[in-house]
């Protein structure tokens, strides 16, 4: 049983999806998918435990040996990201019931859970697999589910956002497909480990560069790296609130994982240096993303969109870490992957609660909410401070590593850029605080009650995690440290 965990991690949610379809009531489908998510979370915990003890796990699908058959390969990096994705997905799902019941028709609710499970299975598959074509397949599974999830939003603009995302996402996926085709035609293998061994011999070939470029651009489209981010704000703003929380905390993280995988494991970090100054590009785009997106967020009126732009900015930080390229820099990226999942999970769940009670999340809705929904607003404040990077929260840990990496790498201009980005975050977070605590409520919201228990519970678990992992950093630091060694070791 234990040796089958790598495949069970993907198969269980994948099979749970059609099973959900058979359950006709939203509530039952919810309970079932929660159970599945918890099992999945337990598997990822067990995987992380195994991997950190005994090194990478390899699982051969159908018993075919690695370079020919499809290999599932769980190393410390994938186990870590699996845990992040599973953890947040489970918490969001636990919180989902009341919000889904309010935002989605009763008849469509089981379908919602079907899609959620499919999307989760796709994301987990991308992380677990060691086969590059398998990555494409799972990417499309998760993407298709995502398009449909977004289209479930109540606002008709959700349809339009889903359509735009579909176009961009499909182009991105096709780019990845082209990249995979190049790699296969050059090396005759699809296995990542095998590719990593064969590619150095072909390092000077233009085709390899082309393949790399296609893969990176394709992934960056999914990642919503500035300036390829235009699909993201609308998709996040108009999707059902639960979907936003789920996507913001997981989907972009998986894209970051892919980028790291391709950049460091498959191609090797030094591969692009002479021809493509990729690290410089990452730095520039990362900083531009942080600034442009943060400034747009400051002037945004819809808070879901505001945090969507903030996500684009935070992705900028992750890319900056990769752009610095040192071990500390990549570790900052990995830490932020974990930390940002905690922050945005909490924030979007809190917004889900606001939407649940008030039907929208504009600034006019949250005026004076500090008194009527104290716990929800307190959650936004704490998670928002974490976003800013106040010490004692996880956001600070990221900033610490990023600035440390910048100083050690003598990127002096990067230091003020990173910190200025934090202050921009402070501005948009503080707009919310002022509206919630120091404004008089608009008529009609005085009687509004606190969010339902499920939402509160999940939201506050994430908020507490924001503080807890900001103080006790052993788990993420140790895991990301090991993962970085694995990545950089493979490169050097």
């Amino acid at each position, binding site marked *: 049983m234990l040796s089958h965990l790598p495949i069970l991690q993907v198969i269980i949610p994948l099979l749970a999806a059609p099973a959900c379809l058979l359950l006709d009531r939203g509530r039952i489908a919810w309970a079932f998918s929660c159970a599945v998510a918890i099992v999945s979370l337990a598997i990822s915990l067990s995987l992380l435990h195994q991997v950190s003890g005994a090194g990478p796990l390899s699982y051969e699908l159908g018993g075919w040996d690695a370079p020919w058959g499809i290999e599932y390969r769980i190393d410390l990096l994938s186990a870590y990201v699996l845990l992040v994705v599973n953890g947040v997905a489970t918490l969001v799902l636990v919180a989902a019931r009341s919000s889904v019941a309010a935002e989605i028709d009763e008849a469509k609710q089981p379908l919602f859970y079907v899609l959620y499970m499919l999307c989760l299975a796709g994301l987990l598959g991308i992380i677990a697999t060691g086969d590059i074509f398998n990555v494409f397949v799972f990417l499309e599974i998760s993407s298709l589910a995502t398009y449909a999830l977004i289209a479930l939003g109540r606002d008709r603009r959700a349809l339009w956002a889903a359509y735009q995302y579909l176009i961009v996402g499909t182009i991105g996926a096709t780019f990845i497909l082209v990249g995979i085709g190049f790699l296969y035609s050059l090396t005759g293998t699809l296995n990542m480990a095998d590719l990593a061994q064969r590619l150095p011999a072909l390092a000077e070939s233009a085709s390899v560069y082309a393949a790399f470029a296609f893969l990176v651009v394709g992934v960056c489209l999914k990642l919503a790296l500035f300036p390829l981010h235009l699909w993201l704000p609308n998709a996040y703003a108009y999707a059902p609130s639960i979907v936003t929380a789920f996507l913001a905390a997981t989907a972009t993280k998986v894209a970051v994982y892919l980028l790291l995988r391709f950049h460091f494991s498959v191609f090797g970090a030094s591969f692009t240096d002479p021809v493509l100054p990729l690290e410089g590009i990452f730095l520039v785009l990362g900083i531009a993303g942080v600034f442009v997106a943060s400034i747009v967020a400051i002037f945004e009126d819809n808070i879901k969109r505001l945090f969507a732009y903030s996500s684009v900015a935070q992705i900028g930080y992750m890319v900056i870490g990769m752009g610095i390229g040192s071990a500390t820099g990549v570790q900052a990226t990995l830490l932020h992957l974990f930390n940002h999942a905690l922050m945005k999970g909490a924030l979007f769940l809190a917004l889900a609660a606001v939407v649940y009670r008030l039907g929208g999340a504009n600034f006019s809705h949250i005026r004076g909410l500090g008194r009527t929904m104290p716990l929800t607003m307190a959650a936004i404040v704490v998670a928002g401070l974490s976003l800013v*990077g106040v*010490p004692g929260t996880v956001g600070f840990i990221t900033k610490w590593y990023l600035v*440390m990496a910048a*100083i050690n790498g003598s990127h002096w201009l990067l*230091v003020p850029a990173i*910190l200025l980005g934090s202050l921009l975050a*402070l501005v948009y977070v503080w707009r919310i605080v*002022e509206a919630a605590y120091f404004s008089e409520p608009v008529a009609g919201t005085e009687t509004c009650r606190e969010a339902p228990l499920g939402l509160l519970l999940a939201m506050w678990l994430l908020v507490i995690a924001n503080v807890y992992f900001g*103080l006790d*950093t052993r788990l993420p630091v140790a895991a990301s440290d090991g993962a970085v060694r694995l990545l950089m070791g493979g490169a050097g």
Partner: protein
Amino acid sequence: MNAQLALQLTLVAPLAGALLIALTGKWPNLRESVTLATSVLLFALVLQVFAAMGVNHDPRELHIDLFELLPGITIALHSEPLSILFAMVASGLWIVTSVYSIGYMRTNNEKHQTRFYTCFAVAIFGAMGVAFAANLFTLFLFYEVLTLSTYPLVAHKGDDNARRGARIYLGVLLATSIGLFLPAMIWTYAVAGTLDFRPGGILDGNIAGAAATGLLMLYLFGIGKAAVMPVHKWLPAAMVAPTPVSALLHAVAVVKAGVFTMAKVVIYIFGLDFLADVPNEMWAVYIAGFTIVSASVVALRQTNIKRMLAYSTVSQLSYIVMAVVVLTPYSEMGAIIHIVAHAVAKITLFFAAGAIYVASKKTEIAQLDGIGYRMPITMAAFTVAALSMIGVPPTGGFVSKWYMIAGAFQLDSYFVLAVLATSTALNAAYFLPIVFRAFFRKEAGDGNLDHGEAPVPMVAAICVTAVLTLLVFFFNGPLVDFEQTIIGGFQ
């Protein structure tokens, strides 16, 4: 009680107090009792730590590693003479302020009193953490706690004016701490490999030349709570807060946390000997000197009592900063004593301003004609404190100024002497007219004539702090003895 336990409890007590205050919010009497009890308990705990340390105790024995935050960075507490001093001042004056706030808040019928007392206790928690932090990182953590927990207090009134002031307050403090202090700290860690406060500093041999000057400037402006120009803007902005907040936090806990941090950085991070070798170190003296004089000039032109006091605070804080970076033993001692002397005197002045507001709703200097006859105790206390600001004996301000001048002579710096002389004259120029108005002018016929002293708790508090201002003058010997252990070569 075990000293280690007492040290940890100094953090637990105010936090537990805050929780209890929040829970007992529905019963105001119980809530205020909790506040008072917590403040007394806290002061007792600080005394306990002090007693356990003794005068010549080895500070390393009182060091507690709480947990490791990042590899190489621990959250740790320790206690050394400077910590004790700051903790005693903050916790002792918290008791007085609690008594005073009860009178102030009730008489004024302020809203959100539970939030007020809770945040106040959390702010004290932050101040205690700053005081007992064993390394710069721990200090930074609590420094930010202090910033954030005082925001709701500044924005207390919730009107546009209060929100604007609070926004400036938070904006400046967070921007300087995240934008300058944090990179300075990470830089320090990157070159020194540690952030522990160690006698003699940790930077010697790890950084040199212009880089060291740059680092010093990052700290000087990054520690925004020390209010060196041009990052002083938050302090006048914070005057929208209720007076007890201005009194304890913006005359004592918050601003003293700033200069305390600066002193810690100079003494334990740079080290006095190393900093003396840093090129252009005197710039820090010039910047502080400039702040002293220009803030005094601005104070001279203020018409609102609290704003005038705020600019006076900016100026007085820079006395401490300047004395710290003058680097001679006497000036360091002057800085340390001035932390106490200014705290007790400035809190008295704010208390008096609050008492005047509560009794008569007057906020402008021009309205104070003849008020000394209606509120003789308050204005007598005000006079004592004002004399301390100027540095006239027999008040605490004289003692600290004495040491500062001695320190300036040790350095042979005519700049420092000139600054001290000029600002003394300026201080007299803006404080004495108020005293004159209060006692020697006839009351104007308009306005609220029917009032006497403010409620008893407030007057009692004012008397206590005014007496303390005098006591600093008469009993500064033990203070000097106790603190001199941290300054090597003090004669």
